[in-house]
């Protein structure tokens, strides 16, 4: 079990260093089961730092989301490191950002947090609706313990964790300058049970499934904006000249948008599941990503976000890549 005092002490020590700009972690949210990204800039902020099964956000997004304001003439940009707390999946995002030169190794200080699974708020709220009081949670002996207003409750991990955690192969950070807590056992399935059921349906059934989902997309772009791999200064899908995708919201443009988003993550998606978590209309976006993860793994034996020195999948090839589909 994670000792919060130790975590906060580490955070204080870290932000006191001259070469650290600030630390990105999590804090308790404003109500119920929410947590929020927390930017620790001083010792006081560090007191609110937590790490628990409720810490859903992939903070690696903030490494590339940070806006670069113009540096006044004569001044120097602040190039100090950003300290960041990462779960296993989040750490893969950091590695992939390194592969893609989105960040530099010397500009981040990675605090690894081994993770036994993150609560899916929707699953939990179904079991425990109408919770306004702030709730704390922790892992204990394979269960998740919640201090609910009505008293302590223990839930079997697999009942309330996010789908991504059930197939997680990297609960322990793959990159870290310092680690808090002990490494945990890999419990996620290596299979693709989450999408196999959809794959076996016929094309009409699959389209019926997706049309229904995509039809409800409101194009709020939260899936894209939350993605730690989506950090183009100007997204190609926002361009008006040429307009790859029109602004009108309908099945055609929505489908094209979601296909483009998924395809742009081919060989890059590190399965943090944030796109699906944030979707306000609950489109199972991870399915699209997972399908590509499956193909990338089966066809090319490739897993992104593991090796900072890896060559990007779609920037290379093997002469003997599968080509049974080619006429």
């Amino acid at each position: 079990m994670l000792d919060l005092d130790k975590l906060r002490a580490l955070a204080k020590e870290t932000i006191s260093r001259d070469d650290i700009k600030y630390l990105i972690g999590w804090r308790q949210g404003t109500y119920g089961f929410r947590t929020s990204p927390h930017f620790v800039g001083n010792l006081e902020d560090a007191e609110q730092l937590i790490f628990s099964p409720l810490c859903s956000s992939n903070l690696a997004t903030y490494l590339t989301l940070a806006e670069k304001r113009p540096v006044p003439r004569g001044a120097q940009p602040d190039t100090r490191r950003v300290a960041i707390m990462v779960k296993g999946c989040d750490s893969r995002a950091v590695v992939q950002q390194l592969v893609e030169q989105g960040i530099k190794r010397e500009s981040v200080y990675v605090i690894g947090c081994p993770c036994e699974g993150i609560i899916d708020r929707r699953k939990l709220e179904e079991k425990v609706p109408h919770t306004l009081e702030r709730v704390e949670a922790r892992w204990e002996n394979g269960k998740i313990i919640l201090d609910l207003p009505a008293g302590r409750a223990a839930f079997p991990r697999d009942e309330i964790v996010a789908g991504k955690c059930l197939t997680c192969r990297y609960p322990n950070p793959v990159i870290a300058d310092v680690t808090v807590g002990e490494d945990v056992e890999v419990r996620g399935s290596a299979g693709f049970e989450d999408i196999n059921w959809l794959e076996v349906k016929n094309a009409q059934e699959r389209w019926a499934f997706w049309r229904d989902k995509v039809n409800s997309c409101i194009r709020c772009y939260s899936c894209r904006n939350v993605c730690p791999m989506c950090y183009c200064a100007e997204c190609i899908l926002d361009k008006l000249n040429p307009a790859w995708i029109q602004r009108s919201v309908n099945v055609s443009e929505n489908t094209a948008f979601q296909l483009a988003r998924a395809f742009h993550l081919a060989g890059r998606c590190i399965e943090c599941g944030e796109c699906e978590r944030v979707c306000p209309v609950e489109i199972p976006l991870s399915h699209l990503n997972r399908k590509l993860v499956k193909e990338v793994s089966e066809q090319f034996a490739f897993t992104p976000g593991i090796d900072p020195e890896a060559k990007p999948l779609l920037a290379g090839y093997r002469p003997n890549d599968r080509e049974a589909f080619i006429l």
Partner: protein
Amino acid sequence: MSSKPKIGVYICHCGVNIAKTVDVEELTRYAVRLPNVRVARDYSYMCSDPGQLMIREDIRKSGLNRVVVASCSPRMHELTFRKALLEAGLNPYYLEIANIREHCSWVHKDKQEATAKAKKLLQAAVAKVRFLEPLQEKEVDVEAAALIIGGGIAGIQASLDIANAGFKVYLVEKTSSIGGRMSQLDKTFPTLDCSACILTPKMVDVASHPNITLLAYSQVESISGYVGNFQVKVRKKARYVDFNKCTGCGLCAEECRLANRVKSEFNMGMSNRSAVYLPFPQAVPAKYTVDPQSCLYLTKGKCGKSPKCADACPAGAIDFEQKDELVEFKAGTIIVATGFDVFDAARKPEYGYSDYENVLTGLEMERIISASGPTGGKLVLGKGDGEYVPKEIAFIKCVGSRDKSTGNEYCSRVCCMYIAKLAHLVKDKIPEANVRIYYMDVRAFGKGFEEFYDRVRREGVRYIRGNPSEIYRRNGKLVIMVEDTLTAKPLEDEVDMVVLGVGLEPRRDAREVIDLLRLSQSADRFFLEAHPKLAPVDTATEGVFLAGCAQGPKDIPDTVAQAKGAASSALVLLSSGKVKVQAQISWVNEATCRGCGYCAEICPYTAIEMVPVNKMGHQVTVARVNEALCKGCGACAAGCLSGSVQQKSFMDSQILPQIAALGGKS
């Protein structure tokens, strides 16, 4: 950006080639209605002078700033029309071609369907041309040197022509001597010149030419760069003989412990040489080479007490410490003249080439008949006391040519005549011999060929039409099973020897050359020329030309002619000293580039580098294209996630309108 598009559309009838199937008048009426089209005209031959004049006049008078030509493939006349634009003062890249001939009128019969398709193709071209941007053609200097790969007659001829024109030539030959296949031939058809007599003077010219650097016993290791600026790396294999000290006296070979115990490649394994050898007496350079595959010292590390060759060499030229040497140089142009391999007769087991020693290939027969060959020019069979003069001699043609079972559907072009020549030489040496030739067809198409064929028949050589099915041995004789297809009678023909007219095949290591130079192969696996008729010595790789049998089977005159053609093409580059580089290359919008480096990883030419730039006071990395290295494939553009890398003339903003035009129901 440029001003509002004013498009001229020019629709070619191509005589009846297009007009017969596509309603060109209807197409013209349709074109005028397309957005931004100012003028649309049709004409019988748009590529003709009056056709081009029509375009130029319209540009001048109507102020057109974009041109669409609906005609043949852009691979035919894109350059023609670009020139017309340029002459009229318009940027030549404001042109788009709609291919309504090869992709439409020639492949469809129904006039209505073909016209409808032509409309779509035209609409797409108009959609694209609106978004085209002017491009500038840049020039780079051409390094005044040529690389020629292969030292056969093609490579020799090309080298001499280029060297005589005053340019530097690097001639790279894999074996220890130039001369190639021609040096193995006895006489040449149909004139019966002595092959060596006409070849060796040229070989000597090569060796002594001040402009030619001969790199024999060498192989090209790598080629990078681009037309005008190829960086070449050649591996000079160790000869274990000091090139400068060796006088070619041959004492080493005489003293070699393996003297007469190593099969001679030059004589097709029918005679023996030493482990240190000169492949044939007239070899150029006339320098000995230690064969690392057989030399006792090199294979076993020991040769008696000391290698006898070294002891024997008065010049002290033997040097077992010699290492391969890498030579690097720049070349502006490259000629590939790597020649051919003969068909491996063992792949036709029914002819018993592997089983019966009296079944020979044509090239082996050349060596036997040659005065410099294993028998000194005597045509005899058997050895020692069993030696006898063959009386019954058969030739079989099309072995490994025109034969689907071997994968070689093509005609090797030389077999008909070299067999006629060999038959003549046999009759010359053994007048009483019975010579017959089994054939499918006789193709005597060249200058003097038919006359020679006639002469050989008059000399008593019998031509029997039929493709033998099997050869077997009976009572010490060879029996040919064959059906005479003119009389429809099965024959069992008993002979003393059989000569197989084996065909020509691509070099077995052709793949290496392909990888080296990014060449393509045609269906017959020989190297593909840029155009079978109009660019027969060019390749898809700019600045690289083909000569000789590397491109396809041909006889000596054709080879020499093509070598001269390739030399002339190379000289065009070398003597102009400049070459235009691609204008349709990639370009990076540094403002939106996220610096991920995918494009740089993708680029097969390392034409993209990641460079640091200052954006609002922050150091960031962006991609940048080296314009001289970029070949304009556009793979980077398709791989860029933010659309920041674009290929000029093939930009997203130009292709998406094409897609829209083709997708729409017209």
